[in-house]
């Protein structure tokens, strides 16, 4: 198992840090199939973007991200200190083709096999898992 982690302030600049973390992960796990890389990265960045977009606060919000590559799956766990997120994963679906918003969670669900959100103590926790195709 290969692991990378990031602890950062939640702001738009942290998205670049997430991309760099993923690039670093792929540099060590060269056997992960391209399609898995693309879909997993898309899913991780959608959740990261969701956290950034909805974490509006007077105080600094922190987020911890752990990425893991196992033999058969890819996993990401986000924990952030924002107020409880209002999330309805069950009903997240692709909107009308001409919609300009509302695709993020649906895209994430399509790109991974498991997606969950839970409030754990004072933290919002998102978990994503994608079974590797190769």
């Amino acid at each position, binding site marked *: 198992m290969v692991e990378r982690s990031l602890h950062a302030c939640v702001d738009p600049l942290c998205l670049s840090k997430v991309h760099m973390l993923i690039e670093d992960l792929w540099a060590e796990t060269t056997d992960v199939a391209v399609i898995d890389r693309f879909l997993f990265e898309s899913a991780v*960045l959608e959740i990261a973007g969701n956290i950034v977009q909805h974490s509006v606060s007077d105080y600094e919000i922190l987020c911890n991200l752990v990425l893991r590559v196992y033999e058969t799956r890819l996993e990401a766990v986000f924990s952030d200190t924002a107020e409880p997120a209002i999330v309805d994963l069950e009903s997240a679906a692709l909107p009308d083709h001409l919609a300009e918003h509302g695709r993020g969670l649906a895209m994430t669900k399509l790109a991974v096999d498991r997606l969950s959100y839970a409030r754990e103590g004072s933290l919002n926790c998102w978990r994503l898992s994608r079974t590797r195709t190769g």
Partner: protein
Amino acid sequence: MKFDVSSPRADAAVIRPCGRLDMTAAPELRDLVTTAVRDEARSHVVIDLAATDFIDSSGLGSLIGGLKVARNAGGDLRIACPTTQVTMVLELTNMLRILRPYETVEDALS
């Protein structure tokens, strides 16, 4: 994110995002399309995606927004040269019919 903008003919604009078209870059793309269409009367817009390493749902939303602005002005927005990641996102979201990729900018302009 850098955007290169060119005007190959009087009624057209080519906008080339360079880097990641995500929530931080999407507003600027919308502004560039709006400027081209409404301020410069260039209602035929081509987004050259050859240098777009990554697109997310926000970036996709900005393409749709630009498409609507262009069509409302009697024109259109087309995409050209999408990278593999961009094509994957378009397939994942069933957007290939509405944002049909062209192989070259020239094909998209014709």
